[in-house]
């Protein structure tokens, strides 16, 4: 099938999904143990979207993310050591503890970056795509955004501009059924948001967001179209948020049946089942164990790393008047 990932790529996606899953689980434990600070937004159950959609990107391509970005970060190539350390506010984090988990940015990897203003990832990627077009490059910019973010005005404005100028941007709508605590039916009168692509003549597709391979295929087609200069595409990945909105969420509004049904379609299970014949159970389990060990090591290292101390240094220079 066109734009299908190779077996090597599929194993790598599997590995990254396990990295993210383990990270989420460890963060959950640390939160319960009172060892985290500030809200943390887990994406377990949604890993296939972030990992599948970024698997075909080059380092020089750009990704913009949301408050729920762990899978996007890992997918685009950030290491779990720097992510874990940033989330735990350490000097060794990607941003020296200045940013926190919602705002991780790492320009060298094309992750610029997390964004906790809902919807803001969308014009951010559109602006990068404009930059690429003005410079005459062949990179693409990709934004992730949620079903809640799709209701913001900047989503509309960005799609209109991107389509009008045929910008090399890929819109990845991560439809996890919920805004913050409210079901999508309380946020929008239409269940399939990709219908809106037609309003901008943007090719749009719905994919199974729990199947990394399906996500990969749809997004790879969109990426190719963007690189050919044919403009933006919209991929709506249907998935489900298995945890509360964040660590501060009291929960209680997600249906048990829904949770069970989606758990049965866990993206890591789906990936495992589809790979096991070709790759063998042993190899896959080894990949998983190594991923788990990598995250555990990252968490331990982060917990032992020093907290930053405030200093007036090069990062505060643009704000020099204060000091």
């Amino acid at each position: 099938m066109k734009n299908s990932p190779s077996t090597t790529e599929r194993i790598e996606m599997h590995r990254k999904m396990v990295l993210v899953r383990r990270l989420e689980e460890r963060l959950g434990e640390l939160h319960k143990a009172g060892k985290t600070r500030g809200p943390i937004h887990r994406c377990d159950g949604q890993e296939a979207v972030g990992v599948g959609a970024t698997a075909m990107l080059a380092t020089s391509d750009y990704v913009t993310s949301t408050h729920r970005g762990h899978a996007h970060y890992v997918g685009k190539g950030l290491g779990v050591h720097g992510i874990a350390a940033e989330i735990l506010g350490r000097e060794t984090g990607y941003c020296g503890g200045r940013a926190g988990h919602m705002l991780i940015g790492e320009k060298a990897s094309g992750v610029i970056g997390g964004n906790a203003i809902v919807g803001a990832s969308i014009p951010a990627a559109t602006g990068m795509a404009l930059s690429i077009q003005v410079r005459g490059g062949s990179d693409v910019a990709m934004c992730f955004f949620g079903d809640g973010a799709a209701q913001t005005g900047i989503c509309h404005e960005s799609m209109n501009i991107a389509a009008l100028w045929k910008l090399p941007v890929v819109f990845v709508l991560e439809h996890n059924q919920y805004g913050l605590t409210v079901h999508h039916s309380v946020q929008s009168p239409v269940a399939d948001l990709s219908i809106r692509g037609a309003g901008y003549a943007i090719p749009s597709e719905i994919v199974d967001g729990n199947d990394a391979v399906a996500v990969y295929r749809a997004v790879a087609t969109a990426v190719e179209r963007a690189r050919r200069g044919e403009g933006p595409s919209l991929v709506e990945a249907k998935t489900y948020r298995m945890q509360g909105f964040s660590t501060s969420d009291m929960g209680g509004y997600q249906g048990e049946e829904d949770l069970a049904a989606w758990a049965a379609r866990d993206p890591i299970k789906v990936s495992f089942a589809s790979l096991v014949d070709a790759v063998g159970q042993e190899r896959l389990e080894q990949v998983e164990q190594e991923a788990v060990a990598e995250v555990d090591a990252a968490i331990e290292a982060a917990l032992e790393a020093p907290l930053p101390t405030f200093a007036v240094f090069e990062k505060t220079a643009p704000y020099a008047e204060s000091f």
Partner: protein
Amino acid sequence: MAKLRYAEALNQALREEMQRDPSVFLFGEDIARYGGVFKVTRGLMDEFGEGRVRDTPISEQTLAAMAVTAAMTGTRPILEIMYADFMPLVLDALINQASIYEYLWNDVSMPFVLRTQGGGGAGAGAQHSKSLDSLVAHIPGLKVVAPVTPADAKGLLKTAIRDSQPVIFLEHKLLYNLRDDVPDDPDFTVEIGKARTVCEGADISIFATSRMVLESHKAAELLAADGISAEVIDLRSLRPLDLSAIKTSIAKTHHAVVVNEGWRFCGYAAELSATIMDHAFDDLDGPVARVTLPDMPVPYSEPLEMAVLPNAAKIADAARATLR
């Protein structure tokens, strides 16, 4: 008189005013079914129904514009904006819409309340920790209040809801769990435009807003240990200002510190300093000291965040410096 948490006091004010006046309704993100991420609107949808307590899409700009026109056409909307950091999204509605119509048009009033919460100290990062008070306090035709005590939270919210002008109601994420006495009387209100004296003093006046009132109170204790008697004034109403309270206090102490958790440059503390310049220059024996966040983003990691937030020690230092 019951002991209530600040969030509960707000909830009580909303409930009482909704019972009293059927034209009052609430809307905002996650406020209905969930009861608000800071739990201020808990139980209200169950009591008043989905028509009067509405969860909304994430569309702040439009929601605020809707509050303006709904208020001009016979209702009293109360809009919750989840974080003060999102206030830039509603400024067109406030500056280009709400602010102009009472002057331009005949027979219009705009009785809406926009509630939001700001401030740092919770590890929420650069996009969820700001105090952007001066952006809203700059807008003519609006009132801006920022209660600190649970009683003021209730009393000012009730007054705001009954006011015929737009009121921006600024809460603080670290105040919601503060517990204190709150009058039960459904007719208990607190006048907008009146400051509250937190403690009296003779040597220096500290004018503060929102959570910084608590830090200023602690600063007064630090200063007392040095033999300095500080008067702490909770402005409560950022606009209109209680000029007479400001003038009276400075006439007594001849020195002032102004404290606001927002940025310094063109921030709310600048207005306080300039107001004192305008109205009390001759009474001043030293320059007014400004204590604010430095002009930079609020960092995430705890030691960084704590280093930049204004606090009692910094306020006390500023007081000592201006007395020197």
